[in-house]
């Protein structure tokens, strides 16, 4: 019988193996690719970290949301018990629930701030129209997260706030009723509605947000940062995306997590009483971000209700989306965009006044 041939390695084959190993295991190429990416020097400017914090908050919301999903049961009644268990019995559940609660509040505040700063800097103008529009789309997506997320704990506040929102949506002519039925799976807020809200909240909306973020970052990378308010160009000196910008973002992430964790430690997230659809005594109070819309609904009643529920919010959205094409000012600096600045300031003033009116109406009186 012929003996088996011994396995031999030549110098060439060993070198070839090492070369393959280096390529496949050491990930040199992706790292080298990352190192080759440069971004404008302003990416690390002290006053340009809001976008980074927003990304940190989105990541934080995804991570804390994934943790909460481990314990969550999307069935009325059981949903409340599962959130209650997460909050008061699961290890670190209170912190993670609190992080999820405060992170979206902070996300919305900072997103509005980010939008305002971009507006003041005139960064929505050519060639950054699509950066602005994708940003507005992201901002428009956030309330959908809140609306779908509010119902999930199946507590009184979430349940009755959903009733108010659904009734406002239903009042929109032609499409209102259909939209409510599609959202809720019927006329009532029950198990089908909860399941749909849950799927929207943890699957469809996050996918859409990730897509919009990718589009937004693509246009940011393509067109760079806007000029500073003093007229100087942003990208004076390019810097490496990796590791400098990535490291800076990680620091931002850690600081953000730490601050929110401290916040939630001292002010635990709220969980109201279990939802009781038969209890008509509960009066939900509008959240801070929806106060001005709530006042619009309160002001325009009867046949004019459509103004508050659809026309004015719709026009406001159209104004934001169309702003890059509506603004014909000669330059980007605020002094060169007086008309747009005055219109925006008036709109902001009206929104703030309406919000304050709503605040004093709902929260202004001392607790009995």
């Amino acid at each position: 019988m012929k003996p088996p041939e011994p396995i031999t390695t030549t110098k060439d084959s060993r070198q070839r193996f090492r070369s393959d190993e280096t390529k496949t295991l050491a990930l040199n190429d992706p790292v080298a690719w990352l190192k080759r990416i440069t971004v404008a020097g302003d990416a690390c400017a002290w006053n340009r970290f809001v976008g980074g914090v927003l990304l940190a908050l989105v990541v934080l919301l995804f991570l804390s949301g994934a943790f909460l999903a481990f314990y969550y049961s999307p069935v009325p009644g059981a949903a409340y018990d599962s959130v209650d268990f997460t909050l008061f019995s699961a290890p670190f559940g209170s912190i993670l629930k609190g992080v999820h609660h405060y992170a979206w509040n902070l996300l919305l505040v900072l997103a509005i701030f980010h939008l305002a700063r971009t507006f003041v800097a005139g960064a929505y103008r050519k060639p950054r129209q699509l950066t602005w529009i994708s940003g507005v789309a992201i901002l428009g997506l956030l309330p959908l997260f809140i609306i779908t997320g509010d119902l999930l704990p199946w507590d009184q506040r979430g349940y009755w706030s959903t009733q108010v929102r659904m009734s406002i949506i239903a009042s929109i002519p032609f499409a209102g009723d259909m939209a409510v039925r599609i959202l809720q799976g019927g006329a009532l807020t029950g198990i089908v509605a909860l399941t749909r809200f849950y799927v929207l909240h943890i699957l469809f909306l996050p996918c859409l947000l990730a897509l919009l973020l990718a589009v937004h970052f693509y246009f940011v990378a393509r067109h760079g940062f806007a000029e500073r308010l003093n007229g100087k160009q942003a990208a004076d000196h390019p810097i490496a995306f990796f590791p400098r910008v990535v490291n800076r973002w990680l620091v931002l992430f850690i600081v953000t997590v730490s601050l929110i964790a401290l916040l939630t430690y001292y002010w635990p997230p709220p969980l109201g009483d279990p939802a009781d659809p038969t209890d008509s005594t509960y009066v939900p109070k509008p959240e801070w971000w929806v106060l001005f819309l709530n006042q619009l609904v309160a002001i325009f009643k009867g046949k004019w209700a459509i103004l508050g529920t659809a026309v004015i919010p719709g026009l406001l959205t159209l104004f934001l989306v169309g702003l890059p094409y509506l603004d014909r000012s000669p330059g980007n600096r605020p002094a060169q965009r007086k008309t747009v600045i005055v219109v925006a300031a008036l709109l902001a003033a009206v929104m703030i006044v309406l919000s304050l009116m709503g605040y004093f109406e709902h929260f202004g009186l001392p607790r009995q």
Partner: protein
Amino acid sequence: MDKLNTKWSFALWILLVIALVPMFTPQGRADRLVITALRISATPIGLDDPVWQRSRTTSIPVKGRGAFSDEAGVVETRALYTADELYFLFRWDDPTHSTTKQSWVYDGKKWHHQPGNEDRIALLFEIARIDHFATRGCAVTCHSPADLPREQWRLATHTASEKGDLWHWTAARSAPYNYADDAWLTVAGNPSGSYRETGRRKDWGEGGDVRNQTPDGTRPLYMPNPRIVPSVPGFLLFEEAAEITDYSIFSPGDVIPFRLPRKPSGSRFDVKAQSRYAEGGWTVMVHRRLDTGNEDDVMFLPTRNYSFAIAVFDDSGDDHSKATLPLTLEFER
């Protein structure tokens, strides 16, 4: 232009800080009374400890139901807590000091039960969520099963997964041993049968009382032990009682308690109490560890709120009570 840049940035940052404030705005609340437990370091010594004055008094309306729906009152409530104990102080008007609880009285020939019962206060918390308790209070447990007439209603939950924690202070039976009987509430024993048992279950341990009667129920079985000085004047504790061997020693008008309090122990003795009847009303302090470690007790976490309800009973041995709407207990941190 640099100044302009700084101005805009400054204005936007101010707006950002202002915008963060509403994050802490309350998000709505039903029209419910909230009892806030104040955090203290030292335990209150008793009913008159000055530390009670630091806590806020909440006047909780109580109302009768059914045939007694015209009855109403107020329970003044204060709450305190330490690192490991929760304290309540209740004060309510009660024109009659009732601790008789159907005592025996001898008329020279036969023994009869005296008229009169006892005053009581009961608290109900959730150990595991009771459906609609947070919005309807005791009604969901007292009116059970809902398909039966009122006289057949029993105190019970609707499903076995719902569990309540019941603290029951009774002027004749638990007050002598300075505690409130600790029980728990579950589904009625026989919910599908024609007779529905109550869902009340005793916590583990001893306590309660012994009915002082002979097997035929015509006369008392026990009397005060002549060799023991009563530790609680006016009451006959079961541990201080002696079996009656000679009924000829009694004279007309002699009174012997019918319900003899038993020495409490175990989880049944978790809720300690002090009480006083004065100036036409009761003042009762009840307190319990935040976490007893017992499955038949609600565990209090100062980070969360608790729904509960109170009922007061005036000279009553049945469900003739005045109850509150659902209340919220919150811990000041």
